[in-house]
């Protein structure tokens, strides 16, 4: 356990060094959020009755998404892991007296967290200063905020567990290109990365609610603004915890099977 904690600390501080990249990320994420909100404002003016949530709820949703992109986006991967699988350095990972799954998992957590620490605060600050209803408003209540925090932690762990599945698939296929591109395109849509999930058609949403995708970032954002009432949050949180456990168990089993007959590339 100590080894993993130490490794997390090292990767985390290493990640904090990329400040120029973080600044560029902040500018991009902010512009992206700003244009998204203007787009939805146009839809709101056209037909407010068809809007599935309050406008300021939507604005909070979008700003939280932009600010915590590094935590929840399904397309953030550690290139090192892909290249070590391809180059054959996977052998070194196997030699270490550490669990490969936990090792990679911790590495990804540290990568995401270090990026989020650098990027989220500037975006949150500016978004909070924007005039209502375009800015980030306060959470619906203390209970909503508490639920948001716990759900956000679960989402963070869940997204990372999901990304582990892509790395593991690469252990089998060796080339990350195909699996990764297809997975990224599909997941980004299903997690609400393109348009927030409440804007999906109701019949699609009815199914999507029960998948791990809805638990990856949509749930905490809607808890924050009270779109999911604090009293009704328990089943959704339970489902989230269930998916987290399921993906970790699945990932471990799949990785162990893959490593038993893994091909080591190169010499």
């Amino acid at each position, binding site marked *: 356990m100590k080894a993993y904690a130490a490794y997390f600390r090292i990767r985390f501080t290493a990640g904090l060094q990329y400040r120029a*990249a973080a*600044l*560029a*990320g902040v*500018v*991009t994420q902010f*512009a*992206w959020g700003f*244009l998204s909100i*203007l*787009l939805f*404002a*146009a*839809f709101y*003016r*056209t*037909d407010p009755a*068809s809007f599935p949530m309050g406008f300021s709820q939507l604005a909070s949703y979008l700003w939280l998404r932009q600010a915590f992109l590094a935590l929840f986006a399904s397309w953030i991967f550690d290139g090192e892991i892909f290249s070590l699988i391809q180059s054959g350095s996977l052998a070194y990972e196997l030699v270490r007296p550490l669990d490969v799954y936990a090792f990679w998992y911790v590495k990804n957590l540290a990568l995401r967290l270090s990026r989020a620490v650098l990027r989220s605060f500037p975006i949150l600050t500016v978004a909070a200063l924007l005039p209502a209803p375009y800015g980030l408003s306060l959470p619906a209540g203390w209970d909503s905020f508490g639920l948001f925090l716990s759900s956000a932690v679960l989402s963070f762990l869940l997204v990372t567990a999901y990304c582990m599945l892509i790395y593991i698939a690469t252990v089998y296929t060796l*080339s990350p*290109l*195909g699996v*990764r*591109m*297809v997975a*990224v*395109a*599909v997941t*980004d*849509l299903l997690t609400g990365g*393109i*348009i927030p999930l409440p*804007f*999906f*058609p109701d019949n*699609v949403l009815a199914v999507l609610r029960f998948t791990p995708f809805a638990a990856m970032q949509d749930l905490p954002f809607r808890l924050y603004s009270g779109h999911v009432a604090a009293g009704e949050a328990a089943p959704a949180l339970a489902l989230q915890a269930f998916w987290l456990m399921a993906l970790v168990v699945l990932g471990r089993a799949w990785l162990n099977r893959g490593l038993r007959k893994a091909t080591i590339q190169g010499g």
Partner: protein
Amino acid sequence: MRLLGKYMLILLKSQMQYKTSFFLTALGQFLSSFSALLGIGFLMTRFRTVSSFSMEEVLLCYSVVTMAFALAECFFRGFDAVPAVLSQGEFDRILVRPRNVVFQVLAAKMEFTRVGRLLQAILVLCYALPKSGIQWNWDKILTLMFMIVGGVGVFSGLFLLFAGLCFFTVEGLEFMNVFTDGGREFGQYPLAVYGKEVLKFFTFVVPHALFQYYPLLYLTGRSDSKLYMLLPLLALWFWVPCLCVWKIGLRRYRSTGS
């Protein structure tokens, strides 16, 4: 010109060496624009119109922008490699060859996998064209072509601009993606949707609206002005300032050695 053809053939052949990878990447390109398309579909079926533009008109806009972006990426993404070439000190090699620098940079890299995105745009165009209720005549067909040409011009101009700026910074400028990738994502809707200020920005600073919003007004019969039909060609002048930045950068270029 014949040299360009040779280059293209070689690049195509080399990319075809990894056939599975090629088709999977093309499929990924197709899927990623498809999920963007689903996003538009979901929003437009819910709201029916946005700022008085119908679903078919938005789709027309989407396909023009996507097509222009795919073409620009296919043939002009060579500029993307400039930061890497610069920091490795390999740019000197390009300078000593007796050919145009821009030509060499472009010919060194072409992404034929963008055919996935292009295919998507063509399919959407085939769907939206008959359904949009536009009375087609030669002027309008010409306008549509101008839009695509102008779009390729603006996107490639942006790629050129970023490459030119790299002479000053040596590293890539990630936040510039707002104008290229952002231009593609948010250009899926007519730019007036975002309000007057944003429209002005995209008219006078980065001319996305010149090939997208204004000619669309002419296409859909909202305006009769022939000027709007020709604006996409005006957008091609965007290359001039971009080329200037590139030329100035090139003049003050110092090798990073190695």
